């Protein structure tokens, strides 16, 4: 039993038949070829499968595909604009925040929402916000730095735009 769902995936309309019990993670990866949401635990403990659903970070391993019907889904593949990396993506590279990289798409999407919610986050805010995403390589130091740097750069750009 299933149905055809229609939603926006990284800005493009998608329509696809899914079973009622199919998980968004599996549909993205196996039917739509979108691989950045990663399987790390399958039960919502690690955050590696995070996607943005109508702008909110959700765990795609706990989300039924039918739930995204009519909604907007963004993954790490969809952040670059005109093949320019997003400021958060750039900051992760510049701060050396990436090691194995498996958890990174999830962190970047959570960081996007974090900065939207609080453009001037202090470190406690950042650490609390990203606590649901696990990383075994970096000890989070350079990840926190990258989010701070992205906040600084966004502030700078906003300032510049105002002057213009």
């Amino acid at each position, binding site marked *: 039993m299933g149905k055809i769902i229609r939603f926006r995936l990284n800005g493009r309309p998608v329509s696809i038949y899914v079973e009622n019990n199919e998980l968004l993670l599996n549909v993205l990866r196996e039917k739509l070829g979108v*691989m*950045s949401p990663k399987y790390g*635990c399958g039960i919502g*403990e690690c955050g590696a499968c995070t996607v943005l659903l109508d702008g909110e970070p959700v765990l795609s391993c706990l989300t039924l595909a039918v739930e995204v019907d009519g909604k907007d889904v963004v993954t790490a593949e969809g952040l670059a604009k005109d093949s320019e990396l997003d400021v958060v993506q750039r900051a992760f*590279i510049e701060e050396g925040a990436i090691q*194995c*990289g498996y958890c990174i798409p999830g962190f970047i999407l959570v960081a996007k929402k974090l900065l939207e919610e609080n453009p001037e986050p202090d470190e406690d805010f950042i650490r609390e916000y990203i606590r649901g995403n696990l990383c075994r390589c*970096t*000890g989070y130091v350079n990840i926190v730095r990258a989010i701070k740097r992205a906040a600084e750069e966004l502030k700078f750009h906003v300032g510049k735009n105002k002057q213009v």
Partner: protein
Amino acid sequence: MASSSLKQEGFRYIGKRTPRKDGVAKVSGQMRYTYDIYLPGMLYGRILKSPYPHAKIKNIDVSEAEKMGAVVITFKDVPKKKFNIRLVSADRVNYKDWEVLTDHPKYVGDYVAAVAAETEELAQKAVEAIKIEWEVFEPLLDPFESMKDGRPKIHNKILFGSKEITVKNNVACRLDYSEGDVEKAFKEADVVIERTFKTNRRYHMQLEPKVTVAKPEPDGGITVWTTTQTIHNTRILISQVFDIPMSKVNVKKLPIGGSFGSSIQTNLVTLVAVALALKAGRPVKIALSREEDMYEHSSYQMYFRLKVAARKDGTILAGELENTMDIGGHQIQAYPLLGCLLGWFVSLYKWKNIKYKGIAVYTNKVPACAFRGYGNPQITWAVESVIDELAEALGIDPIELRLKNYVGRGDLFWGQGPTVKSVVKSDGVPELLKKGAELIGWYNRPQPGEQKGRFRRGIGLGRGFHTSGAGGRISGEVIDFTGCILKINEDGSVDYITALQDHGGGSLDAHAKIIAEELGVPLEKINIIWADTQTTVYDVCTHASRGTYVGGEAARRAAREVKKKLLEYAVRLLGDVVNPEALNIKPDEELGQGVIYVEGMPDKKITVGEVAREAWQRNWGSVAAVVSYRATNSPPAYTVYFVEVEVDTETGRLRPVRVVAGADVGTVINPDLAAGQLHGGFAQGWGMAVLEDTPYDPETGELMCRGFITDYKIMTAQDLPKVDDFTVIFASTHEPTGPFGAKGLGEAALNPVAGAVANAIYNAIGVRLYELPITPEKILKALKERGLK
């Protein structure tokens, strides 16, 4: 050439912050890991695992599973061979007790059968339809219990090299060693301290669970994508087990979502996927769930009895170590670990008189394998705790005592065990201890136990090292060499092809910088190829913190060979230059090319791209090199951790307040990534010290956490010190045997952490705990027992 002259001039790429080459792919979600491999016509595999910690199959019925259309294999369908899933010991000293599938499972989760079907769901249903009649034995979950007479035999006959041997009292292997006379030294010493220690059994918790895709080829061969630290050893093992010529087994190198030692061996799932694919005649993917992965591998749990002695003046006189290791249901590298544990121990301090007794014991638990440091974090925790106690007993500052006795420059060093000896040539320990002490405020730290309030803070020091690879002057019992291919393309861009795996630490970025530096071409020109076993020469494995030191030197040598050829061709093209020695190469960032030039004659020049193009157009041939390289040293990368810990005496909770992490890695090649090793090393070490363990249910033999991360927690961003409270320092050393003076780092970044934490806890509350992890419950109990609350 010139590592020394370049050192004087200053490096162009080495030590500079540069964006990692795989950064864009990783942040944009385009990096493809093994989990992301899907092939047309692929089947999904699932494995039937033993629900019992020790049992024998009396009867197995797979007919229902086969009726569902599944391809099924059991122990009856796989080669009747015993092997070791880790190929690092020379074959003559390799213990072999594994089978692809077994009728005699030795731990909950041991593989007994497997199926492949059109969907994962169908495969799971088919696995559940297999019927087994079991004979169940009493589980042995404690190594001391396991060794007693009359206990069930976990293994009976196993292989040692090609010889069959009988296992007695569940003892997997032993190693004893002695030097000098410890008993005499204990009698003559002013202070003798003897303690027992018990470590935890930790799970690697790499983010990507184990996964394999195996594709049968029309010529009878097989192509394999798998989570591994070593594509060549994986190929060799597949070839040996399934009798397929190596040339027909191709193992692909892919990025790995963390490993930390958990894929230092060929995970058994790889062989099962191969067996299924061969039977099905179609590609098969087996992706383990997190719960399954937790039943795949763990760290070695160790029990130590440690006795040390010193004279009043702080001269250490003797060290005696008894090491009992709980290795679980199979040997992966228990025997070489007995040697390494001795090596770590004797290379920490100059004990002068040494006695060592190592014993590895089978239990009905998840097989233990290397976990970042390979036993070094365990023994360093114990030794650094005892050294602190010794300092206190002698009334000597712990830094002074360490400086007086540690194994440093000019000393014999055999970190990787008795067959791998060399002399220390670079040593940043004094510098790191001095700087670290200043930064943390060492000389203002409190006296142990003097504080009274609810929150008590203490500062602790842990010092340690890890080797850079396992190279040495004689061949010994360990295989360690590497190789690479380097070629200049017809436009002057460079392909670097190596089997050496990068787990994310940045080894391959370091190699690219080494090549750019040696060759004199811009870093952007160096392309790191994701290769496979068919197109690379042998590399043993990315382990032993050898990626930069061993692999980097191979890369440097290849660059040197290629450069020689380029200069020869440039002499021909430039016409009147006398010989290649008259030429230099340097990168021109504007041109985006290496430029070959004559010193003092700016017009006498040609780019690497032009030389490559002319060599192609004039039919001179390719500019390329193949290098196979064995290191004759494995120098210590020293690390020093100063940690400030806060103890909440109401709840027993511990908080890491400040960290100063010091590392002597020789020349630092990637500063951001090197710091990242220390950040990550601390996080894992802190977890080892205070949180992580995998206890077993004594009745069922299952993991108490049942494979869930909620019950096997690791540190989150909230549990660790703030950015400004974590200071990283590097010693200003130069390792003469390393590429541009570099040494290893990955494991050294973890090894002394638990020791530093344990010493900080003692400094805060005046209590020493000898069992890891040091949980809030243990802290509260200890405070209560001693009336310190």
